[in-house]
């Protein structure tokens, strides 16, 4: 009888896990403010935040306030939001395509955005124009992939993946052409660095762009979470269960693309996270999308912030973010995979 009571369809552990993750993330965010060349105490940090809302005696330099509120704040917040956004996009695509090897750029968003940014760079565009161009071409690439799959493949999910791969290759080829046209003193290095990703140019304006895109996407994914979850039972089966498959598919593509393209526009291409963080999330909470997606978001945010902290902590060199995520993440992932590979076959 006791065994039967144990089987519960609600999962109380899940809420506990989420709270723990939130706590860790919160602690890391606070700690992150203290990393960097300017040194100060936690007390000062709290006072500076408090001074935004109430009257506090300002015993610190004006530059410190600027460093914290204009430089570190957007960078830390964006690290969390971008990490979370890429991870939950990856989680959604993996569930849609029923494939753990899928990442958010499966439909060509990164290739398109990379081409757009490079194109803007060789035309002497300013930073905002570069971001905008990356955004537009990222969306264009995914739209092309979606339209190709719609026109030629009916509703098949396999065709959608194929269309994404094709579009990706196409924009990568275009990017290579732009690279050969770029001058090798300034343009080519900046294109190369952009493609490796960096949060060093994050501003509060970027936070204001990221937030609405994120809210819309997360709301859409939340609203359809059970339908998305059921997609892993198979496209046909889930339709007989009463799910409007084309609609849910479109919802996933739109919200994942929106989050990814804004992320890429802000900090360049950061690979790896979107594919691997969902795996960590599944190890923490199981395969169920309802739980796995929110855990993905928190773990992804935590992880990218951690990596970016390492970059900020290393003085004199600005290591590329996209490269370091892979460098730190892969060994961690391999260790975790070795420990918990049950349920995989």
């Amino acid at each position, binding site marked *: 009888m006791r065994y039967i009571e144990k*089987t519960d369809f609600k999962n109380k552990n899940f809420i506990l896990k989420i709270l723990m993750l939130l706590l860790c993330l919160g602690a890391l965010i606070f700690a992150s403010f203290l990393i960097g060349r300017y040194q100060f105490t936690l007390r000062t940090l709290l006072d500076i935040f408090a001074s935004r809302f109430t009257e506090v005696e300002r015993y610190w330099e004006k530059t410190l306030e600027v460093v914290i509120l204009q430089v570190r704040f957007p960078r830390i917040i964006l690290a969390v939001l971008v990490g979370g956004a890429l991870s939950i996009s990856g989680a959604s695509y993996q*569930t849609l395509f029923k494939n753990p090897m899928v990442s958010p750029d499966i439909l060509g968003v990164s290739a398109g955005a990379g081409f757009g940014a490079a194109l803007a760079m060789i035309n002497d565009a300013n930073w905002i124009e570069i971001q905008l161009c990356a955004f537009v071409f990222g969306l264009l690439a995914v739209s092309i992939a979606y339209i190709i799959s719609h026109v030629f493949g009916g509703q098949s999910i396999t065709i959608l993946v194929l269309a994404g791969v094709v579009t990706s290759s196409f924009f990568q080829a275009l990017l290579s052409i732009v690279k050969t046209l770029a001058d090798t003193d300034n343009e080519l290095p900046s294109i190369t660095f952009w493609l490796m990703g960096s949060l060093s140019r994050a501003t509060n304006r970027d936070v204001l762009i990221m937030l609405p895109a994120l809210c819309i996407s997360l709301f859409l994914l939340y609203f359809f979470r059970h339908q998305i*979850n059921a997609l892993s*039972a198979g496209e046909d089966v889930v339709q007989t269960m009463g799910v409007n*498959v084309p609609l849910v598919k479109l919802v996933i593509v739109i919200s994942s693309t929106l989050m990814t393209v804004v992320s890429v526009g802000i900090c360049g291409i950061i690979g790896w996270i979107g594919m691997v963080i969902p795996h960590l999330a599944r190890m923490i909470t199981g395969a169920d999308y309802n739980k796995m997606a929110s855990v993905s978001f928190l773990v992804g945010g935590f992880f990218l912030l951690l990596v970016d902290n390492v970059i900020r902590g290393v003085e004199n060199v600005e290591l590329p973010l996209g490269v370091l995520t892979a460098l730190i993440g892969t060994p961690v992932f391999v260790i975790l995979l070795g420990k918990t590979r049950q349920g995989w076959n």
Partner: protein
Amino acid sequence: MLKVKNLSFHYNKGREILSDVSFELHKNDVSCLLGSNGTGKTTLLRCLLALNKTTKGIIKINGQDISKESPKKRAKYMAYVPQASTMAFPYLAKEVVLMGRIAHLGPGASPNNRDHKVCREVLENLGIYHLAEKVFNQMSGGERQMFLVARAMVQQAQILVMDEPTANLDYSNQVKILQIIKQLSEEGYSILMTSHFPDHAFLSCNKVMLMKGGKIIEIGKPEDAVTTQNLSNLYDTRVCVADVELCQEDITTKVCVPIMKKAK
């Protein structure tokens, strides 16, 4: 319950996969669809489930044409049990079953206590409640098939459509599934299943449809439809349907035995 009339289907014009299929399924019916590979059995099921768009014909449930209904409404009439396969991710068995409640969820809502209760009752009814915490992919084929049946049952549709429910199962699990099918029909479900074993028709069905070349060539009670002549014709193989007496149980039943050619 379910009424199919003059249903036809083709991918390319001029090459019909199904032609003029008509049959009825009533309450408590278990109907077995027999036929060789590639004869259109699965296509027929897919047409009923609206996974393929029929080119001609009417599908009515309780007198209502369902071809224009939304997937959600359709799911409340008809549930589908696919062949036992694995999931792409390590889902727990209870999570797989809970997916079956989707048609009953409000927009944006989560399963509530009532949904949980339905799942629990179905699992208890099938005697697999104690397995609910297991990882679906790690269970045996028989257990997975039982959970897929459970997932279809929590959908609370009157009609269950099963595609080869005994495929890839060992002998005892085949019997178990057939037993469950019989039990479900007694509980009021109407079941349409496909099978490659004509014996299954005698074991758990009260109706048989023989399908060849996209047409239903025979329809009726198992005793009448599954005969030596019909089966030999259906499979282009010599099959003998014989009466056997199970002495200890005092039952007479029929069995199908293929006639083997003598090796030279």
